[in-house]
C-alpha cells in the first residue's frame, strides 16, 4: 500500500465513530498496539519535546524502507504516534518526505486534540520527516 492508501484506510476507520469517546477508545487501543521502540533507543536524544508526556521515536532503514518504532509514557500520546507510524512506516524515505499530512485533519484528530497535543503532533510529524530526510541523504 502507498502512504496515501494507508491514510485513506485510517480516515475510513475513524469515520465509523460518531463521538469523541469512541475515537479516544480507538486511539487508546492503537496505542496499546504500537510497535515499541527497543529500550536501547529510549534515550534523551530521541525524546520529542512539546508534550507533557514523553515520546521517544526511533527509525531504522531496512531494504531502503524506513521502519519507525516509538513509545510514550502516556497512552493517548502513544495512540497518536501509532497512527502516524502506521501511515509512514515501511515506506521509502522519498515517499515519506512527499507524503501529504492532510489526513490528520480529515480524521478530526487535530480539532479533537488540545493545542498542546496538537503542537506535539506537529513536532512528531516533523521528527518522522527528519528521519526520512536523513536516510534519503544517505541513499543519494
Amino acid at each position, binding site marked *: 500500500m502507498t502512504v496515501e492508501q494507508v491514510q485513506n484506510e485510517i480516515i475510513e476507520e475513524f469515520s465509523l465513530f460518531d463521538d469523541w469517546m469512541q475515537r479516544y477508545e480507538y486511539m487508546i487501543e492503537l496505542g496499546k498496539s504500537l510497535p515499541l521502540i527497543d529500550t536501547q533507543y529510549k534515550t534523551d536524544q530521541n525524546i520529542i519535546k512539546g508534550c507533557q508526556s514523553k515520546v521517544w521515536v526511533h527509525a531504522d532503514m531496512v531494504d531502503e524502507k524506513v521502519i519507525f518504532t516509538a513509545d510514550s509514557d*502516556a*497512552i493517548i500520546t502513544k495512540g497518536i504516534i501509532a497512527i502516524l507510524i502506521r501511515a509512514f512506516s515501511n515506506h521509502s524515505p522519498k515517499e515519506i518526505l512527499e507524503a501529504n499530512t492532510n489526513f490528520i485533519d480529515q480524521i478530526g484528530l487535530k480539532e479533537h486534540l488540545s493545542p498542546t497535543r496538537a503542537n506535539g503532533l506537529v513536532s512528531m510529524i516533523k521528527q518522522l520527516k527528519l528521519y526520512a530526510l536523513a536516510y534519503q541523504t544517505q541513499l543519494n
Partner: protein
Amino acid sequence: MTLDLTKIRADFPILSRKVNGQPLVYLDNAATSQTPKQVIDVIADYYQRYNANIHRGVHTLSQEATDKFEEARKTVQDHFGIEKTHEIIFTPGTTHSINLVAFGFGSLLKTGDEVIVSALEHHANIVPWQMMCERSGAILRVIPMTDAGTLDMKAYDKLLNDKTKLVFVNHVSNALGTINPIEEIIEKAHAIGAAVLVDGAQACGHIKPNLQKLNVDFYTVSAHKLCGPTGVGILYGKEHWLKKLPPYQGGGEMIDEVTFEKTTYADLPHKFEAGTPNICGGIAFGAALNYMNAVGFEAIGAYEDELLKNATDRLSKIEGLRIYGETERKTAVISFNIDDIHPYDIGTLLDKMGIAVRTGHHCAQPIMDYYKIPGTVRASFAFYNTLEEVDQFVNGVQKATDMLR
C-alpha cells in the same frame, strides 16, 4: 452559616459555560480562581469612569484613582489584620513578592549564613532563594517531607541553629493541599532570631490569616487565587524589615530625589512600588476581598471541607487510586494517580467530559521527585463548586480509568 450556592454560582458568569458540549466543572482553582461579576464590574467601572495614573496627580480622575487604590490597600490591611498600611506593598503577584525579599536578603546575608526552605514548596519559593544563595554565599537547608505529605517537624528543629537567618515556607502546599504548621515554624524560628517568610498564595482563597497574630515577618498573596484579577498581589512585611531591605526595582514613585550623582529613596510603601502599579488590578483585588468576606471565610472553610471529605471518600473507592497528601489539615485539594496511568491521559479524558483539572508537576518538582512520579492529577475545589460536581468528577475519573486500563 451555610452558603447559598445558587446565588453564589450566579455571580460567576464562567460557571454556566459549556466545554466540549458539557457543562463546565471547574476544579483547577489552585491554579487560578474564577472571578465574580462584582469584581468584573469594578474593573469595567475603573476604565469607564476614573482610569488615571495615581499619586502626585492634581486632577480629579487621578485623585479618585489614588483614593480607590489606597482604599484597596486599607481593605487588604483589614482583611489580613495588618498593623500599618505602609507594611503592604502592591506587587504583580506572589512570585514578584518573593523575589523582592530574596533579592534584598542577597545583600543582608553573608557566606555561611543558613536559610531554611521546606520540601513542600512551589518553585516560586525555591528558585529565588537558590539565586539569592548563589549571590550571597548563604546555604540552603531543606525541611524534609513525610510520606503523608507533611513536614518533618523534628527535622526542622534540628536544622535551626544560630547561623539560621531566614525560614521560608508556604502556608498551604499547592501540589498537595497540606496546611503547614506555620505558627510553630514561626515561633521556633523567632526563638533563635531568624525571620520567616510565609508564601500565602495557596492559602488565601480558603483561609483568612491574621498576620499580626501570626507574627510572621513576610507574607505573600496573589489576587488571582482569591477571585481577583491576574497581574496583582501583595507583599506584607514588618515595617522594620521593609526598612532594612534595600530597594528592589528602580523607577518613578520609589524615589525621593534623583540626580545623576545620587538618588535617595522614598518612604514605605513607595520604596518598593517602582513605576505605574497595576492600578485597576489593586482596586479589583480589594473588591475580590470584599466579595469573599461577604460570603464569609468561616462558611467557605466549612463548606470546602465538606466537598473535600465527600470527594476523598468516594474517590478512594476507585481501585488503584492513590492520593498524595493525607493529612487532616488540608485545603480542598486532591492530588492523585491511578496505578501507573499517566496523569495527562486522565486529564485529557476528563476535559472531554467538561471537567477541568490540572496534571503535571504543579511547579513542585521536589515533591514529585520524593514520590518518584512524573506528576499527579490535581482536583482543587472552591466554594462555588457543588456536591453534584463532585459526583461528575468522581464518575468522570472512573470512566476515564475504565477506558485507560
